[in-house]
């Protein structure tokens, strides 16, 4: 690959630091940027140092070490508008959203990519564990899983468009996490021993409740907990505090364990059921992004992931009036609406979308 100007999104973590260092080593003109996010989203505990201003200081130290320019960009308003607002809207609608997907497509490979191109850069690079293969002559770029199965993050990237992918680099895609740390040590990066964070930079335990309390308190209005027949069993603290499939924290004494099977936003009701009611046969997916091919006319048999690092299940992916139905060959644990369903063929990411509905199956395991 020719020497290019590349903008690297640096969080101060070991992954994005090594991504920047590797591109620099390969002779690219690397420009480091940190994205300043709203105050109060600063992660704490194990995730301290990611996405907060402390992370910016670490990123600045790395940039100084490898001698590249580093700019902190003020993304507070953009993050509030592009990520937090839809995040809250989803909770209001009884969904469990995935903010990392939005942050990637709208900020890192959206606003930031636009800016990078304006600066004369050919690419935006990040420390994601995923592989992008660019086709010469303007062909469709492909997105594949990172080679490290423990850390593959392609799940969070399914909604990138071919245009975005064409201007994207993932220098860590062919590496294992251990190798990345090794490189950080070899290069003397000051973050080599820093604990890892997840892609999710602010939704930690308890973290998103604070966020909801601040930005959409109406999702935390108390309401009834009922079973599928409408019988009220108890009270909840607001549907935003629950997710479909959840068992703990319901505060109901029942003969057998109960699980959240539905969040009914219009009536502010949490519907619960038994273990048997937490399996689905079909997921309906909206906002589908087909990456590896044009929208297919006929069903495809693919592997489907419904959560980050979750196991994939075989399914028929069936186009259906602009939506897609995912028909599992065996009962599948229930998936919260708002979560991403991502389709793979081997390590090739074929496409994905947002779960909008499901059909439960009544069957014992």
């Amino acid at each position, binding site marked *: 690959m020719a020497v290019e*100007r590349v903008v690297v999104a640096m969080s101060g973590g070991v992954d994005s630091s090594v991504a920047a260092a590797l591109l620099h080593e390969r002779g690219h003109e690397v*420009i480091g940027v940190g*994205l300043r996010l709203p105050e109060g989203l600063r992660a704490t505990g194990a995730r301290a140092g990611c996405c907060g201003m402390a992370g910016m200081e670490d990123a600045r130290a790395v940039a100084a070490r490898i001698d590249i*320019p580093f*700019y902190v*960009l*003020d*993304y*507070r*308003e*953009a993050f509030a*508008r*592009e990520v937090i607002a839809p995040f809250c809207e989803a909770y209001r609608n009884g969904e469990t959203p995935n903010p990392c997907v939005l942050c990637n497509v*709208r900020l890192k490979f*959206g*606003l930031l990519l*636009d*800016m990078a*191109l*304006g*600066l*004369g850069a050919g690419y935006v690079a990040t420390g994601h564990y995923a592989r992008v293969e660019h086709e010469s002559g303007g062909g469709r770029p492909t997105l594949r899983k990172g080679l490290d199965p423990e850390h593959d993050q392609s799940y969070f990237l399914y909604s990138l468009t071919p245009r975005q992918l064409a201007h994207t680099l993932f220098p860590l895609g062919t590496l294992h996490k251990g190798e990345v740390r090794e490189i950080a040590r070899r290069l003397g990066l000051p973050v080599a021993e820093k604990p890892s964070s997840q892609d999710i930079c602010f939704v930690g335990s308890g973290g998103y409740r604070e966020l909801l309390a601040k930005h959409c308190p109406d999702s935390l209005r108390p309401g009834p907990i009922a079973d599928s027949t409408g019988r009220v069993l108890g009270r909840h603290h607001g549907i935003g505090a629950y997710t479909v499939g959840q068992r703990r924290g319901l505060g109901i004494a029942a003969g057998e364990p109960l699980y959240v099977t539905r969040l009914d936003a219009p009536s502010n009701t949490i519907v619960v059921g038994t273990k048997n009611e937490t399996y689905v046969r079909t997921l309906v997916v909206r906002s589908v992004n087909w990456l590896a091919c044009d929208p297919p006319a006929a069903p495809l048999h693919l592997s489907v992931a419904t959560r980050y690092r979750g196991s994939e299940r075989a399914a028929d992916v069936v186009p259906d009036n602009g939506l897609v139905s995912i028909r599992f060959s065996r009962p599948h644990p229930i998936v919260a609406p708002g979560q991403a369903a991502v389709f793979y063929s081997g390590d090739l990411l074929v496409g994905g979308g947002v779960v909008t509905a499901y059909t439960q199956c009544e069957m014992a395991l």
Partner: protein
Amino acid sequence: MRRVYLDNAATSPVRREVVEAMLPHFSETMGNASSLHMFGQRAKRALEKARQSVASALGADLKEIYFTSGGTESNNLAIKGVARVNSDRGRHLITSAIEHHAVLNTFRHLETEGYQVTYLPVDDQGIVDLNALEHSIRDDTILISIMLANNEVGTIEPLFEIAAFARRKGIPLHTDAVQAVGKMPVSVDDLGVNLLSLTAHKFYGPKGAGALYVGHGTRIAPLLHGGHQERTMRPGTENIPGIVGLATALDLACHDLDSEWARLAGLRNRLENGIRGRIQDIHLNGHPESRLPNILNMSFARAEGESLLLALDLRGIAVSTGSACAAGSTEPSHVLQAMGVDSLLAQGSLRFSLGRDNDEDDIDYVLDALAEIVPRLRELSPVYDPGART
């Protein structure tokens, strides 16, 4: 890569003559000005010579000059010092909405101490509203603080009128003259102010050295307590190298004030006219006449200041954004906001601040870069078509 520094309003390079004047005071005459021995006496002589030099540059008396660590300290000392010592007479203070944060946040702090503050509005060119000033005066008003020239847009405020009014009302007047001193004639008597802040690093002196003029008869209390330095107004061992640097730099700046004003204004006009001639949809922020010669603040519609700054920096050109936020932010700088500049225009604002080292070639290099960068950023700017992305 060619380097063009157009951020002299942030800070400026120290002149060679100033460095040379400072050097002996780090080593040979390194004494503590309070010591009785000869080392101390030499330091004391350098200190008082510097004070005399600064006093005459400002048309002030020797005993009206206090050395500080810089603009922020001078502003804090003036505002808190006057407010607190006069709190028995009243607790109302007046300033403007476009002050530097060193002033603005000092007043905000005083609000937490029970003071009431009026922040005067400005017009669309950054001139403080004198009508609003007259109407905001109360019986318990104890201080007015209005900057002499604005740091973001360069507008020079009508201090003569403000001072005449303050004098009629018997209210002490402070001015933050940090951007003005060394760029335009500043005489405390002509201006008629009671307190005036300045800092060396804005006029080719060292960082960490500033001064506060406190006119005779002005009631003020110190912020720091300690030794008897600066007649107990500002205790702490004096920063003799810095103070000598300040005095030398001010002396040099005053020496060629008129010719440097004309030269800088010429370069500024070359830049402004060049931008007008080569780039569409631009807007001058600030006053077209009553302005410093070295500051030009322009908005480039449908481009982001932050992106412009980066693109220029990658070509070796240093400027600053007039806007505090970016990346699709809707919050412009408090100065542009107070001037009523449209928020999208405010996002695309850049401050070019010229200095001694700049020449016409620099300006032409910047114009060429802008002519290439602005259209490209506009093509891709997310501000250009908000909501287009889904």
